[in-house]
Structure formats: C-alpha cells, structure tokens
C-alpha cells in the first residue's frame, strides 16, 4: 500500500510541475501588455517608479525563465526572495498583504463547503440508488430515475435564486449573509452552509444515483451473490457486505471525476450566498485585476484538485486490492 501511495505521488509530480508552468505561461500570455497601465489607472496613480516596482512585483521584469524560477521559489536556493516552494504566494496588489494569510482563512471555508456537498451527494445518491435497483422497473425506480435525470439538467444556481426569492416572498425567510466561523458560532454557521452544500451536492447526485443503480443491478446478478443467498445469509448482509461494496467501486472514481464540478460549484455558490471562501476571493480579485492573487488562486485550486484526485485514487486502491498489485 505504501508503495502504491508513493508511486501515485511520484506520478503526480510532473502534473504539478506542468500546472505551475501552465499557470505561469497562461497568465503571462493572457496578461495584456498594458495591464499595468490598467491596474495603475484602477488605483488612480501613474508614476514611472511605481510602474517599475509593479513590474518587479508582478514578476514581469527580466526574461521568462528567471521569472518562472523566481515565482516558484527555485531561485530562493541561490539567494532570491521566497516563492511558492517556501509557501509564499506574494502580496495582493489591492491590500498589500501576503496572499498566504488570506488563503489560510479562506481555504478551510471552501474545503468545508465542498466536503458537505460531496457528503450530501453520497448520502442521497447511494441509498436511493440501491433502493432504485432493488425496485427495478417499478414505480419507485421510474420516479427516482426521472428525478435523477431532471437533477442533471436543472442549473443549481437557478434553484438557489428561486429558493431565495420565494423564501423571502412567501415565508419571510432569507439565508443569512453574515458569515460566522464554525468555531465561534456553529449554529449560525450551519444556517448559512446547509443550503449551498445541498444545492452543490444535488447536481452530481443525479448522475451518481443512476451509476449506483446500474452497478448494483450488475453486481446483484453475479454468481457470488447467489452463493451468498444460497448460504442463507440475511438479505441485509448480502446487500451491504457483498453487493454494495463491489457496486461502490466505480462510484469512487466518478466522485474523483466530479471534483472539478464541486470546486466550480463552490465558486458559484460562494458568490450567491456571500460566503468568504476562495471562490469569492477569485471573483473579487479578477474584478480588481489583482494579478498575484489570481495567479496564486489558480495554482491553489489546481493543487487542491490534484491532491483530492490522489486521495480518491488511494482510497480506490484501498477498497480494491486488485489495483494495488497491478
């Protein structure tokens, strides 16, 4: 197992390096030449010294490879300033404070939202998928499948807008916009988080439900299930110990594939529900052309995604011994 994890991490290394290169090049290419003028105008200043400083800070003075090495912090080893490797993403143009500090507050918020969303998706999809498979081609099955297909098609952010508006019109209820930390005020915290988590989770749960159902149907037809039933095991044991564990294997992969959607979802819903996570930070920074923040956030988002995909892979190997020894 350790060997597998080590191999998986090693395999991720080129991806991580490529991501830094892509983020760097991509934003460099994206960066119009007059962006500094734009930024300076945004802040209502214009003098050559500030411009030079800014170029230095944005890392667009000097040639491309030096810039890249400075940004990633490889240059630190021969005495340059700290970079990403040293955990320093630079300073925000807007607030002039280290981005890392800001992220320390914001990353847990987004992560928590994403986790709740995944949990919602699993908690709704797995039992309902099993139920749907057990009632194959009867009305619960048809009903659930129709709902699942509908869930795939309905945009969650639209549901959010509709719920917020009609909630306030008919029930005089509105989601709180005053974000509270989970430790200082858990009740208020969950009052804000439950609806976005539910909405982000609902969108992938439709697809998951259908996947669980098909997998379950396939597994239930296997010989070892018949053997288990013939041995006289209880229905529950057969279902949960023999069938479900095997049926859930592909589901784990699908969760890994669906992760970008969850991240996108957090960006959207943090905006709608004014939750101070990374997504809101991104949208705010893009509006302000806060360049170092945009770069750092893209990198952090990508790294989180890589990490969670590795986690999913490892848990997959944990569930299925065949993977480890391939």
């Amino acid at each position: 197992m350790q060997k597998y994890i080590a191999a998986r991490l090693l395999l991720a290394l080129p991806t991580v390096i490529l991501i830094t290169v892509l983020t760097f090049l991509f934003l460099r290419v994206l960066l119009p030449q007059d962006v500094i003028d734009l930024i300076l105008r945004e802040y209502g200043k214009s003098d050559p010294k500030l411009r030079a400083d800014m170029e230095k800070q944005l890392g667009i003075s000097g040639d491309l490879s030096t810039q890249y090495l400075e940004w990633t912090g490889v240059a630190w080893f021969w005495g340059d300033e700290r970079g990403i490797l040293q955990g320093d993403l630079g300073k925000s143009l807007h607030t002039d404070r280290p981005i890392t500090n800001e992220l320390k507050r914001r990353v847990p918020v987004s992560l928590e939202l994403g986790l709740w969303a995944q949990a919602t998706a699993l908690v709704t999809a797995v039992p309902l998928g099993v139920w749907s498979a057990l009632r194959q081609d009867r009305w619960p099955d048809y009903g659930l499948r129709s709902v699942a297909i509908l869930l795939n098609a309905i945009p969650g952010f639209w549901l959010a807008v509709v719920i917020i508006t009609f909630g306030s019109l008919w029930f005089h209820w509105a989601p709180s916009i005053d974000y509270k930390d989970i430790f200082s005020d858990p009740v208020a915290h969950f009052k804000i988080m439950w609806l976005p988590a539910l909405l982000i989770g609902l969108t992938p749960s439709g697809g998951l439900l259908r996947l669980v159902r098909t997998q379950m149907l396939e597994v239930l037809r296997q010989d070892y299930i018949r053997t288990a039933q013939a041995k006289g095991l209880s229905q529950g044991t057969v279902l949960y110990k023999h069938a479900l564990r095997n049926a859930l294997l592909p589901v784990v992969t699908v969760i890994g594939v669906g992760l970008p959607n969850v991240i996108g979802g957090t960006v959207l819903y943090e905006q709608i529900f004014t939750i101070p996570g990374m997504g809101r930070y991104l949208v705010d920074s893009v509006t302000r052309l806060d360049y170092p923040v945009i770069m750092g956030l893209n990198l952090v988002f990508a790294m989180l995604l890589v990490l969670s995909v590795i986690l999913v892979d490892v848990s997959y190997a944990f569930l299925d011994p065949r993977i480890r020894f391939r």
Partner: protein
Amino acid sequence: MAVRELGSIAEVEGWGGEQSRLNRIFSGIKAFARKKPLGAVCGAVVIFFFIIGDVVPETVNAAGDAAGLGRPLPYLADVLADNTGFLYRYYDQKPRDRLQGSSLNHLLGTDNIGRDTLSRLMYAARTAVMVSFGAVFISQAIGSTIGIASGYYGGIFDKILNRYVDTSEALPGLVVLITIFGIWDSGLWPLIFVFGVYGGPINSRIIRAQAISVMASPYIEAARVVGASDKRIMMRYLLPNVFALIVLSASVQLGFIVLLEAALSFLGYGLDPPFPSWGQMLNLEGRTYMRVQPGLAIYPGLAIALLVFSFNLFGDALRDVLDPRLRGSR
C-alpha cells in the same frame, strides 16, 4: 456501345443507391423513434433549438465576416420578429410596458425596460446552442486528434500527451474560465473557442482507449503490411472505428457546456448585454426584478433545463442504439 451501356447501368445503380441510402436514413429514424420515443422527442427539441438558435446563419455569417464577404444569410429569429405580432427584436424596448405579466402582446411578459421576454429567450437560444455545438465540435476535433495520435504512436509520444491530458484534467474549469474572461473580453466566439480548447484534452482519454483496442485488430496489421501510411491508417481505419464514441461523448458534453456557459454568464463573465444569454438574463434582470415579475427568473432557468434535459436524454437514447455494449449504463 458496351461502354455506354455500362455507364448507363452505373448511373441507374448510382441513382438507385442514392435512393436506398435516403430510405435507409428515413427507416433508421423511424426505427429510432419506435424504439426510443422519449429520445426521439428530445431529439426533435434539440433540432428545434438548433433551428431557432440560427446556428447555420450565424456560422456562415461569421465566416463571411472573417473572409470580408459580409453577412449573406438572414437570421430566422429576425424574420420571426419582423413578421409575427408577438415576437420582437432582442433590443426592442417599450418603456411603457415595463415588467408586465403574460399578455397577448407579450406572451411571457416583459423585463425592466420593456423588452419582450419570449423574444429574448429565443435570441438567447442562439448563444446557448452556438456555444454548445461550436465548443463541442472544437473540443471533439482536438480530443480525437490527441486520442488517435497517442493511441497510434504510443511510446514516449503517448506518455507526454498523457501528462498533458492529466494536467488539463487537473485544471478546475470554472476557475480557469473566470480568470480568462475576467481579464479578456468575452463574446460569442471567444466563448466557443475557449470552451472548445479547454474541453479538448479531457475528451481524448476515452478515444485513446478505444484507439488502442482497435490497434490490436488484424485489419490494422493488414493495412500496415499493404504499406498504408500512418496518416492513412489513422484517417481511414482508426477514425471510423472511434467515430461512434466521438458522437456519444459529444452528446454527453453538449448539456454540460450549456450549463457551464449559463453559470459563467450568471457570474457576469458571459456575453455582454444587450445580446442575451439565458444565464445573463437570470443574472441581470432575473435576480433583480424577480420579486416584481417572477417570470424573468423562472423562464430562463426552465429554458436551460429543457435544453440540457433534451441533450442528455437524446444522447442516452443515441448511445443505447449506437453502442450495445453500453446499454443501460448511467
């Protein structure tokens, strides 16, 4: 004489072949409708949106613009707006009819500056359909090129491409798109190109797998022995064999792109007003005036849901018919 006879026979047979091909297509459609009635209905909805969305005129006109030939084709939406009593241009304002409910003049009501909601939904269909079809076309072209090439050449080439695909998959979609359109100007064709290029590598995985399995078949070896070139093997042997897969993954991708475009527009990074898109209508008019005129937010959402729903079900039905191995999955 003999030659002329041969020619005429060939002509007749050619004509006959054409006829039977048309017949085959028709009977194929009929069989599809009989086997998958819901899928066929959804296919009809997709075609309806395709026509209402003015895909052909918009593409031809954009190409004409680029080539300096002007915009030769009229838009169906414009024709309808000019010739019916209840449809208008997307920018037609009637300040006196602000925020109205449904009426004979405005079937789905009007927005805050008196523009007809139904007409704007119709024009916005162009954004949704153009972006989804255009982006899917580009991304499938990129995806199948990468997939086939890396399946065919294998070795170090495959490994490098694989790393590239891995990396593209690790880029969080909406985040990258917000970054791009937050810095660059958005627009119909930028949206299409960026969505297409972004989705391309991700598509290639499934095609690569299929290409590798096709590579193992004897006819590829036979083609090699006969001395077919790399290009010929890829174009004439691999491509036709992965084509069903391309169609299938395209049909899955269409709905996804519609939702992605809507989300991006909803955040304000889509098309600039006044030209509408469903997500933008939801964001600008819907959110602000929903309390007064709920339809402004309800209808765009329903339109998105209808189109995505049709794309998905049509794709599912298509998959069931085209690829028996995948039957019943999802």
